[in-house]
């Protein structure tokens, strides 16, 4: 096994489509961490993940997974990673038992015992066809397969979308256990920011093909803040000091990138902590600057 510091390292990734460009995307996922990859629909999350997995060609940039080049060492990497999509990619006619046999053909490190344990824990019947499973059960089955071949890196593309909070919580608990040994990493793309707030160590925010923020979640939440003020006070605030402002009848809410500095400079305004969801919302509207 290779020794590596970052499970994923992307530098200058560029991919051009008509009407959309993934523009110079760069970020890293440290080994042993969960990276929340957030952005609204159409921001470029799935495109980035497909580029990582060599599903699509890229126009520029370098990608390393587990310390290895993602093209030159493609199959060695893929033996050590697991991918979970938003939709079940297996035929409805498969049962859990049949799926286990199939996966033994896909992965050399397939652990049937581990798979059966996970299915039992998730309450998944092994003899029932996948076509009869609920959406939550299908996702749990997919995750059970992903966690049953000793993968060092788990890549999830909007895998918790459409699931109820109980199922999502169960899945997040599973991920916490998965990461316990410190050698495993997760890249989880989602627009459900509340899940990422619960579990992510790092966050990367992408919007319209560009990375706006990347770093440790706590640092981002600590540095950013929401400043609230009256309409009159809002006029005194320099546009350079905030990302964007949401105006209402009573005043304005402004997202600031440096909460401490903003609190010091604008002592008359109320400055408080914010959430990932609000950070995402305000960054998305950064071009408008003022919005309602």
């Amino acid at each position, binding site marked *: 096994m290779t020794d590596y510091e970052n499970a994923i390292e992307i530098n200058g990734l560029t991919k051009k489509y008509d009407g959309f460009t993934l523009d110079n995307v760069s970020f890293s996922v440290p080994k042993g961490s969960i990276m929340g990859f957030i952005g609204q629909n159409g921001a470029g999350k799935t495109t980035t993940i497909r580029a990582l997995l060599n599903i*699509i060609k890229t126009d520029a940039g370098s990608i390393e997974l587990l310390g290895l080049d993602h093209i030159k060492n493609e*199959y060695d990497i893929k033996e050590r990673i697991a991918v979970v*999509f938003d939709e079940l*990619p297996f035929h409805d006619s498969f049962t859990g038992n049949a799926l286990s*046999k199939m996966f033994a*053909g*896909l992965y050399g490190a397939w652990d049937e015992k581990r798979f059966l344990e996970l299915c039992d824990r998730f309450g998944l019947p092994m003899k029932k066809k996948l076509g009869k499973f609920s959406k939550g059960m299908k996702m749990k089955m997919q995750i059970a397969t992903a966690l049953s071949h000793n993968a060092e890196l788990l890549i999830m593309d909007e895998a918790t979308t459409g699931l109820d909070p109980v199922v999502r919580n169960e899945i997040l608990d599973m991920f916490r256990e998965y990461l316990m040994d410190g050698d495993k990493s997760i890249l989880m793309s989602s627009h459900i920011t509340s899940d990422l707030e619960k579990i992510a160590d790092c966050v990367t925010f992408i919007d319209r093909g560009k990375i706006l923020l990347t770093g440790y979640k706590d640092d981002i939440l600590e540095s950013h803040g929401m400043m609230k003020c009256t309409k009159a006070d809002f006029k005194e605030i320099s546009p350079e000091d905030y990302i964007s402002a949401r105006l209402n009848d009573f005043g304005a809410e402004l997202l600031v990138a440096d909460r401490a500095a903003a609190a010091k400079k604008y002592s008359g305004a109320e400055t408080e902590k914010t959430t990932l969801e609000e950070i995402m919302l305000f960054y998305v509207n950064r071009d408008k600057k003022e919005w309602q």
Partner: protein
Amino acid sequence: METLKRGSFVKLLYREVYLAKKDMRVGTILFFAFALFCVLIMISFEHGNIGKMIHYVFGNAETEEARLLNEEKISQIRDSIFGMMKLFPVIMGCQFLMAGLDVSGRDELLSWQRFARCSPVSPARRAAAKTVMSLIYLCISVFLAVLYMNIVGAVQGRGVTSGEYALAFTVVAFMAAFCTLGQIYTMILHSTEKGMLALLGTIMVPMWIFAFVNGMGKHNEDIELDVITASCEKLMPFLPLIVLGVFALGFAAMYGLYKRREK
């Protein structure tokens, strides 16, 4: 770097077999149902009511010349019916070859190809699994064809001629090529329906041209079964090579399609 253990190739084949279970069940039922039906028709022609009916229609002749003409007609009808009855079950036995086409079509409906792309199974291994399964289906179809031909030979009391074997194997080989091409079209067009339409177009266009040219009167002779059988016998020594060539091309095409990345 340590060599990583790869997944089992046999388990890759297991996936193909598992998904083709329904097609194989249908293929088995169709084959044996048609085989039974055709054998009964032939028995009935030789010893039963169909034969009596034919003789009743053509049996009355006032002159020796008319009687000979009627016997010739009966013989022609017998040859046509027996020719069709010998081929139908062989074609039904080729239903197994359609299983690969069906599985490929269902793969395209899901995001299976994308998932498989994220697995450590190389395009060559995936294409090899599909090709090996097609070979297995071909062997099953050939076995069923031989079994049926021998049953028919026993019913007729005269065994199987080399011409009959040649005709049956040519039909199976054609169906194998047909299904391999259908699989490729399905993978290129990402749809079983579009793949089948493309396949029908590929086959129908030369047939239409042939029918048009034939209809124009340039080739006035009817094509006799004996002529077709004789042509198949000439082709027989090359048939295994042709089939292997078709599968090799199929493998190469599938490898290329599995290797390609999405836009």
